[in-house]
Structure formats: structure tokens, C-alpha cells
């Protein structure tokens, strides 16, 4: 039987990549371990090794082909005695055997069933950057009052927007530098700092050892002396090692010094679950940091917000925790083409105006909310969707204004449900706008479990669009 060689995945979130080069040609003999091809995404280039012995029967995908889906057949390997005639003529994507589904009689599995494929992930752009996919789906969004009418918009990934924000601020202020694991030579573990080393040099783009507690402290100390560090955590899961420096040193010094000395520093990196990375790499810290006086906590969804708010965070004289999301990095949004696009921290954005019900979300939570809004629109429910953007200080007035209009509120986030950002919003809206509520506030969050690895369980642990749709209908008594 000829053996199919498939397009491999380089990372848990990769769905496609570029087959950049074949190192073997048809008719070449290979043994296991021989490098037969190179594939790349914008994050990495990897060699594909043969895992069996044989002769390359056919190359099915030409070198230089972009957007090759993971698990696509890229070549056929013939064993001893086989000839090209033995090859199956089917050149399509190999069918991934679906895992048998567990009984999905769980209440969480409403519109998105819980079997099969891992959660939707970022579409890794190639180095050429032409496989970017716009964020899904299209709903009519409200104009951002911070962007002047008529401004030219450029489709940009969140990844590029973050990099552009850092580069612009580093050009503007010599005191700004970036430090963290793999930020320089490697160009960023998630390629957010791509190109910064080349432009700004090793003095200002500093690779650190794997030493979160230590380098967070070094960053805060440098900030106390007046520099403006951007500390990248490879993920915020690792920042738990450093949380003492973030809270006890960065957040509290201004108060403890009676206003004499603060820490103008940004702690940034991907936060929350990526895909299939298990319990220790999949936690959302929005609610944790949002509890701390002395911190600002920003969690953008769109590329424009990522850019405008990161620039604001870097300029802010206070410590800012800037929570990104790996799934969003590859998503593309319109970013205004302005010389200096800075957004206000602490201000929510009305993503879509509506009159029936208010949905408040932020960060990756917006992906569920946006899809739910589109579904609900079809059913005649007109949702006002608010992207909180900043978790602390929280723009409660914008939420309350909306609730006064709609009388109904649903919150959406990926974090744990107890003491979540949603429960905080619910409490405060109940206290400050009780008379305007026509229904109990519902909070959609991740489930109260460590993140499981199995694809079906992971999907169940996260919120889903069906839950949001159902919650909105419930508060509308429909």
C-alpha cells in the first residue's frame, strides 16, 4: 500500500501553511528521518521528515504553494515493489478520522456540538501575509467615535497591530524597551515582536532567560527609575510566577510612596486558552488582575483596539496589564491609517447598536458574542453589543446607559465563572440600575473546571455561541 505523506501541523493552532520547498524529487529513495520538505507559517519554518522507507512516488503539492491545509496529502511514498500505478488517484484532503463522539447529553452542547474538531483557531498568516482571514462573521458594526470619519482603513492582523504599536512607541520614546523570553532573536514566541530587534537593536529588544519572577522584578525596578519597559510574558499563565512583582511592587508602589514613585510598565502577552494546550496553559486572568487597585487592565478584541490601546498603555504612567489572545493574533480587522492612533484606556466601545438587549463582552469573548448577535438578528432580536476593551478601570457608565435602554443584560467571557468579570458587572448593574432591569442578568463564562485536553471536553469547558444565544433569549423571555 503506498503511504500518504500529509501536511503536518507546527503548532496547536495551525490550520494551514506554505509548502515552501521540496528537498526530494519524484523517484528519490528516502529512509525514515530524511528531510523531504520545508513548510512555514509566519511563526516558524519546519522540516518535514519521512517516517517510512520507500521511493517518492508523486509530489502532490508544488513547492511554493500557500494555504495548504493541515492533513492535506502532499506526497505519496511507494514501498518496495510498488509502482506509481498503485497510487490512488484521489489528491484531495485526507479525511481525518473523526473521533467517536461521547454522548453529548450535556446542557452546554446546544448549537455547537461537542465532538470532533478542536476549537476554531487563528488562521496562521504566511510570511507573505496573504492568507489572512477577516474576523467572522460580518455584522454591521457601529462607527468608533475615536476614529475620524473618512479615515482610510487597512486590514491588519492583531499580531501586526501589536507589533506596529510597539514599534511606533519605541520610535517615539527612547525610554521604551521590550524584554521577555524569545522576543529578540527568535522574533517572538508568537511573532509579536517580529522585526523589532532588527530596527531597535539588542539594547532595546532584550531576550531574557526563562525567569519570569526575576525579569518582571527587573522590569519594575527599571520602571521605578523612569524607563518604560514592555515586559512580554510568553503567556500569562507563566506570569503567575511573577505575580508578586506585578501586584506588590508595580501596582502598590505609587500609593505606598505617597505618589512619589510609580512604575510606568506594560505587562503583555497572550492570555486565556489557546487550543488543546491543557489546564496549565489555558487560564484567563482578566478577573484576577482586575481586582487590584493600582493596575490598569486592558483586553482588546479587534486589531484597531489592540493597536490604539497598546500605544496608550505604553504611554500610561501606571502599570498596565495588557491581555492578548493567541487565537486572535491571526485575525484581521480594519485599522485606521493614522500617524498616531491612540485610544483612551477605560472606555468601552459600542460594537453594535441595538435596542432589545445588552451583551457585554471583551477580548476573545467577543468572538462568541459577535456570532450570537448575527444569529439573533435573524430571529429578530436586536442586540446592543458592548466591547468593554478595558477591564480596569471599568467603563460601567456605558454599560448602564445601554441597560437603561434595553433593560436586559448578558455578559460573555472565557474565564472561570466564580468572581468573574461578568459577576462583577452584574453586581454593579444590579446596585446602580436595578430599577431599569426587566430580567435577571445572565453571565456566560467558562465552566468551573481546569481546562481539559480532549477536544470534545475542551469545547465543552469554553463558552459557545449557543449558550450566548440561549441566554439572550432567556433574558428576553423568548
Amino acid at each position: 500500500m503506498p503511504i500518504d505523506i500529509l501536511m503536518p501541523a507546527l503548532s496547536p493552532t495551525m490550520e494551514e501553511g506554505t509548502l515552501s520547498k521540496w528537498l526530494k524529487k519524484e523517484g528519490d529513495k528516502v529512509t525514515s528521518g530524511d528531510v523531504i520538505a520545508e513548510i512555514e507559517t509566519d511563526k516558524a519554518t519546519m522540516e518535514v521528515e519521512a517516517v517510512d522507507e520507500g521511493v517518492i512516488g508523486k509530489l502532490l503539492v508544488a513547492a511554493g504553494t500557500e494555504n495548504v491545509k493541515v492533513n492535506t496529502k502532499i506526497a505519496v511514498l511507494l514501498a518496495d515493489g510498488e509502482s506509481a500505478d498503485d497510487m490512488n488517484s484521489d489528491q484531495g484532503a485526507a479525511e481525518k478520522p473523526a473521533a467517536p463522539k461521547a454522548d453529548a447529553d450535556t446542557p452546554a452542547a446546544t448549537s455547537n456540538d461537542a465532538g470532533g474538531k478542536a476549537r476554531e483557531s487563528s488562521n496562521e498568516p504566511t510570511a507573505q501575509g496573504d492568507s489572512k482571514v477577516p474576523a467572522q462573521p460580518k455584522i454591521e458594526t457601529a462607527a468608533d467615535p475615536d476614529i475620524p470619519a473618512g479615515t482610510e482603513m487597512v486590514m491588519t492582523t492583531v499580531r501586526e497591530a501589536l507589533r506596529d504599536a510597539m514599534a511606533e512607541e519605541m520610535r517615539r520614546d527612547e525610554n521604551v524597551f521590550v524584554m521577555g523570553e524569545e522576543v529578540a532573536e527568535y522574533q517572538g514566541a508568537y511573532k509579536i515582536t517580529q522585526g523589532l530587534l532588527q530596527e531597535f537593536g539588542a539594547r532595546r529588544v532584550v531576550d531574557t532567560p526563562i525567569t519570569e519572577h526575576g525579569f518582571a522584578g527587573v522590569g519594575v525596578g527599571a520602571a521605578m527609575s523612569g524607563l518604560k519597559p514592555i515586559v512580554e510574558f510568553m503567556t500569562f499563565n507563566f506570569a503567575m510566577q511573577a505575580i508578586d512583582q506585578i501586584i506588590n511592587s508595580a501596582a502598590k508602589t505609587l500609593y505606598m510612596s505617597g505618589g512619589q514613585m510609580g512604575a510606568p510598565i506594560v505587562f503583555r502577552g497572550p492570555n486565556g486558552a489557546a487550543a488543546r494546550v491543557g489546564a496549565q496553559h489555558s487560564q484567563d486572568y482578566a478577573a484576577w488582575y482586575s481586582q487590584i487597585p493600582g493596575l490598569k487592565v486592558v483586553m482588546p478584541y479587534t486589531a484597531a483596539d489592540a493597536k490604539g490601546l497598546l500605544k496608550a498603555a505604553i504611554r500610561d504612567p501606571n502599570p498596565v496589564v495588557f491581555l492578548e489572545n493567541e487565537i486572535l493574533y491571526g485575525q484581521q480587522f480594519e485599522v485606521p491609517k493614522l500617524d498616531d492612533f491612540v485610544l483612551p484606556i477605560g472606555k468601552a466601545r459600542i460594537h453594535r447598536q441595538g435596542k432589545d438587549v445588552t451583551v457585554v463582552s471583551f477580548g476573545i469573548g467577543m468572538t462568541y458574542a459577535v456570532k450570537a448577535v448575527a444569529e439573533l438578528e435573524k430571529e429578530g432580536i436586536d442586540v446592543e453589543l458592548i466591547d468593554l476593551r478595558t477591564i480596569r478601570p471599568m467603563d460601567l457608565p456605558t454599560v448602564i446607559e445601554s441597560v437603561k435602554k434595553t433593560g436586559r443584560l448578558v455578559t460573555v467571557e472565557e474565564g472561570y465563572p466564580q468572581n468573574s468579570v461578568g459577576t462583577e458587572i452584574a453586581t454593579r448593574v444590579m446596585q446602580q440600575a436595578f430599577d431599569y432591569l426587566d430580567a435577571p442578568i445572565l453571565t456566560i463564562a467558562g465552566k468551573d473546571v481546569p481546562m481539559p485536553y480532549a477536544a470534545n471536553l475542551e469545547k465543552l469547558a469554553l463558552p459557545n455561541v449557543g449558550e450566548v444565544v440561549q441566554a439572550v433569549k432567556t433574558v428576553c423571555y423568548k
Partner: protein
Amino acid sequence: MALPNTASVSGRKSAAKSANAIGSKFGPGDFTGKNSLEFGKDEDLHAYREMLMIRRFEEKAGQLYGMGFIGGFCHLYIGQEAVVVGMQMAQKEGDQVITAYRDHGHMLACGMSARGVMAELTGRRGGYSKGKGGSMHMFSKEKHFYGGHGIVGAQVSLGTGLAFANKYRGNDSVSVAYFGDGAANQGQVYESFNMAALWKLPIVYIVENNRYAMGTSTARATAQSNYSLRGSGFGIPGIQVDGMDVRAVKAAGDEALEHCRSGNGPIILEMLTYRYRGHSMSDPAKYRSKDEVQKMRSEHDPIEQVKVRLMEKGWASEDELKAIDKDIRDVVSDSADFAQADPEPDVSELYTDILL
């Protein structure tokens, strides 16, 4: 002073000996501080005045604590005065100081006012942090004092960040980061050592080895109680210093600061010292004998050593020393009066200084 594992130290002959010569011009016995061991009259008088100021201030703070004017935690520096005074004499304007919670002495040595420190201890608006920091949390940008930190070991990473900033700016300043023998067992200390050595940051790490981490003696808490060796895995040279002899401290400080200013990266000074009082005001120090304390006070007191020298050399008469003592008592009394009379912070201060 005879401490375990410190046989090589004799402040009166050679200020200190290098414990570790890796990557350093310092080899065993090479330490050249002995040439500067002798203090002139002005230096001895200055050291005497500075150390006595700290002692009298701390005694007064202890009194005010007993009277209920100072609340919470209060960690006194009595016995360790030579460490910070000797280092300060070696430093240049612009060098930063950072320490943990036993910080009153460091602030006074940095030139911060007795009134401002004492009023912070009593939680009054004239305190360095407007009464919002307390004993453990004071700062002065003007005097290059960066706190005042309550989490054991955190100041070591922060101090390394100050050194990072010096190198980033290309200035000539050195960060001086103090921590105790207890903090020396914290993980982030070694994370910081690694980065400081890797990037050749200008920082002097000062281990104030007062032999007790709260109530636990070094012998019970550490597998390597020669703290000057703690940087050896990173190639950081370390020196043990008689921390009860201000001249030895100054000499070691001169060498260490020169080492840093010359671009050689970090260095560790282990100051062998002793705390006379308990860990904090609530600690009766039952974990050590009265004899041990008494012996240290009578044979190694840092202030007494200078006083004897001043009188033996005829640099100050008994009357002149009494006059200095009186001046200092006046300053301390004034600070105590101020700290009791000064109003508490205005209630509006509760919500200020959280964000800029």
C-alpha cells in the same frame, strides 16, 4: 568576631577576603581594601555621627512603638549601623539604594530627614509617604532611595532593574541592593544574579548576614552559610566583610563600586553583622542567648569601636563626643515631637496616589 564559616575575616587586619575569584580581579587574599582601612579624623567623626544618629533614632522609634504611637511592624536596625554607613561613605551621588523592611537606617544614611521618616512611622501626613506607607514603605527619588519593600527578596530583582536602567542609560551609577541572610534563600535572588552576571549590570548585592532570619539561625536555614559564595555559580565574585567595622565596610564598598563602575558586572558583599533587637517589636528573641548578644555588644559594637578610636587618637574629647550626642538627641527628639504632633493624613488621601 567569630562567626561560623568565617575564619578568614578579621576586620582589623584585612578588611575582608575574597571568597570567590571567578571572573574577577579578586583572588583569595588579594583584596586590597587594607590600604584604605585607616580612617582620617573627618571620616571617623562622620561615621560616628551617622551611626549614632541611626542608633538614637531607632531607640526612639522603639520607645514610640511601646507608647503606641507606631503601629504594625517595626524592624529596628540597631547593631547593624556600620553596614549602611560604610557603604554610603563609599557611594557617589546618583548611586541607588534599595532594601527590604529593616530600612530606617538606610533612609537616614541616604540623607532622608529624621522628621519625614519618624512621621511616616507614626502614620502622619508629614511622613515620606504621607502616612500611607509605614515603616516598611518609604521612598525618595531625590535621595535615590527606592524603598522600603515588604516581600522578602523582591527588592533584589527590583535593584537589579535599577542597575539595568543604569546600563541602559549608559550612566556611571551603581545600584546597591541590600538583603538579609533570610532573603538569600529566595529563588528570585538567583534569577537576578543570573541576569546581572549575564548582562554585566552595575550592582552591588549586599547580604546583611545578621545570623537570624527572623528566629531561624543561618545554621538551621541554609546549606551554604557563606553567603559570599552564593554567586559562584554565576561567576559573581563575593567578599566577606566585617560588617561591624565601618572602615572595613567602606573599604569593601570602594572596591565593589569600582568593580561595578569599571564594567565588570555584579559583585556580592557579605556583611557579617548582628541585630541586637528582636526581628520586630513583638519578638523577644528567645532563640539566642543573652550572652551571645551581650558579647557582640561589648566586643564588636560598631559605634563603640569608632568612639574608642576617636578618643585614643585624640581626635575628639569626651566633651566633644557628648556634644555630638546631644546634637543627635535633639534632632531625634525633634523628629519624635513632630511625628506625634503632625496630623494624620486627610481622609481624602485614601483615594489619592492609586493611579497617575
